[in-house]
């Protein structure tokens, strides 16, 4: 009921278009997935680093996981608003 499943007439692959009200939800889903992936990667890197370089301490793991989460947050932010670049400020258009 929510999505109109019409077959595409062009040669594009047969995909179901995303209803517009789901965009944010999809983005958040992607963000969550990204968070899990990145945090997991960070965790892994942290564990390796902790074991190899830091004499099995706890903080590299936490730090690296934090890095991963931060990267995920940044990606999520970019996906929601591609115009927010670091060091820039979007000014309203003067009429």
């Amino acid at each position, binding site marked *: *009921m929510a999505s*109109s499943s019409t077959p595409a007439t062009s040669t594009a692959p047969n995909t179901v278009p995303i209803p517009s*009200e789901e965009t944010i939800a999809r983005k958040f889903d992607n963000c969550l997935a990204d968070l899990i992936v990145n945090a997991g990667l960070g965790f892994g890197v942290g564990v390796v680093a902790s074991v190899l370089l830091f004499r099995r301490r706890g903080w590299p793991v936490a730090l690296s996981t934090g890095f991963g989460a931060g990267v995920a947050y940044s990606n999520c*932010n970019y996906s929601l608003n591609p115009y927010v670049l*670091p060091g820039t400020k979007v000014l309203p258009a003067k009429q």
Partner: protein
Amino acid sequence: MVSQLRIARRAGQVVIRQRRLLATKPPPIVVTPVVTVPPAAPALNANTTIPRPGPIPVTPPTPPPLATRLPPPPPPPPPPPPPPRRFFRRFFILTTLGLLTFYPVSGWLSTQNETYRDFFVTNVPGGEAVAEYADDNGWDHFGFGTVSKKAVEGWQKITGEDKKPYSTQERVASRAREVEKDVRSGMRDLESKAKAAAKEAESKSQSTLSSARAKASEVADKASELAHQASSKASQAVDKAKSVASNAVDRTKTEASKAQDVAKHAADRAEDKAASLTDRAVEATRQTADKAVALATVAKEKVVEATSQVPFNFSDGVEGMVREAENALSRSEDKVEDVAHRVKEAVEPKPRGYLDAQRPRDLDPRAVPKKSPHEGKERYTGPALPLGFEPPPGYYIAPPPAPKNPQDTVKETLPLLVPKVKEFAESEPVITQLASTIDSLTQSLSTPTSSDPNGILIKAQDDLAALTKRLDDVKKEEKQRLEKTLAEKAEEFQNVLRTKDEERAQGEQGLKQTWDAERRKMVDEWRGALESELEQQRQGIEQRLREEVVSQGIELQRRWLRSIKSQVETERGGRLAKLDNLTTSLKHLERITLDNSATLDDNVRLHKVWSALRAVQAKADSGDAAFDTELRALKSLSTTDSLTATTLDALESSGIAQTGVKSFASLCSWFSNSVAPRVQSASLVPAPEHATVASHLASATISKIMFRHQAGLVAGDDVTAVLARAEWCLGEKDLDGAAREINSLKGWPAQLAADWLREARRRLEVMQALEIAGTQATLGSLLLV
């Protein structure tokens, strides 16, 4: 490592109890600190030998073996309160940190808030400097992203990528900022300089005053001292000077004489030199003058040659130029000669005789009235003085009168009459006589030595008498002539009168005759005109009569025919008339049937249109079904109606018919189930260019807490109110209103509702097109009726 230590400690603390059979409890181990105290000195006895132990090995307290370790003793008592040293250290650290945070934050705040700035500047020490620093470095623009921007810039600088700002706006802004900074710094510099200068000036003035006073006092003392010294010295010097002076005088005399001789020699030499120089100068000027003259002549010759060579007919401009050149040359020649002359004059020694020693005077001697030389003296009127004698004092001899010039008297001659009277004199000799006498009279008057005037006067009288006689004669003659002429003229006029009378009489007779002839002519003419008119009228009347006769004949014929017809009809029982009736009624019927068929066709068509329209509507309303075939059918049926045709064309070209539109019910449910909640959760998100993850999450959470309007006509511009109004419109089956409301959303809510809005718009478009077609069909049906 921490964990290892923990493990080790715990391991150390663990008591591994070994199982022993029937073993007594091991004695408790009291861990006492080993004190290195020498054993107490035993009681002093004479006999006891005090064993003097050697140095006691001080063993560090080794931890007792693992087996016999007991739990550690209770912790030592808490340490005494931290010494005041720690307090000061902490105090210092905290105050420095606090100040380090306070000043920058206050600086930034003072850029944002004027009242805080005033407070900060006035009350806090060093606040002004910080506020100024903040203003200078543009801390009022500090916001999110400033630090990262600065970091980026710094990085760019390091890597050497810092380019000039891209846009002119940025360039202008940066330039303006620089200028502002410069101006401000300059102003501050000026202010500080002015203050410093003022202070310096004050201090300087004071110091100069004091120094001046000191100097003045010093000078006064010195002066007094010097005066004393000077006086003593002066007396000494005077004596010395006297002696010296006498010597000097003799010496100077000799020297002066020597100098004079030397000067004389020098003067002679100088004179000779000057003379030689002047001779040389004269020669030189002469040479230059000669050269100049020679050059001028050469130039002139050349010009003459040139002009001679050139054809005679110059063009105007060239001729003018040539003339100007020649003039200039001549002028220059003159100038050269002048200059040469002046130079010669200047250089050569002038003859001394004609030295003009008289310099130009300011006063004009002529302005002063001549003083009479005999001022205040009386005229001498006594006997004539002999030669060589002067009048006594107080008297003067009048100068002899100037000799009279006989030519000065009566220069004006009295006018002579004769020449004036010459015109009349030709006819009247008497007049010349009179004139001549008068002339002689005048001559006699003019000359003092005269002949006797009486004779001349008698002559004049005689002449006058003769003149009057002459006049009388002339008058008489004239009178006679006039009378003669009058008589002649009278006769003439009488003759003329007689002739005129005769002529008049003849004229009258002639006129009478002509008048009679004219009258007779006119009468004949009128008679002829009358007769012609009569003829014409007669002819007109005859024509009319003929026509009337003809028409009457036609009418008679018609009557006869009619009467014949009627008789025939009555004989045939009126069948012809019936046949005519039949034909007319048949025609009438034909017309009626044609009309009927036309209306029937229209009705059928309209019916078709209606059914097609209904089919399209049904198909479209069913939702998500393509209705393009029905639409095409409808289009083909409504080709006559232009409005319907255009709308249906537009609808077909938009391509909605292929995909179909959603039904109203599906749209409603879609809205309330899917769109509205999502829009609600995104309602608090700021504008898309400023939205971040955090704002989205915050909006999602807070919107769940917030109150929501029930579906109804709530006023307001926020998202919730808009959604409520849209719901209400959908409840009232007003899709148009709902679409308008959703259209008013902005930002993320608008993006979320975009699909629904698009679908609603498509449906509305189709509905509108079908409505137009329906109204047109209704109009057509009404027209048919």
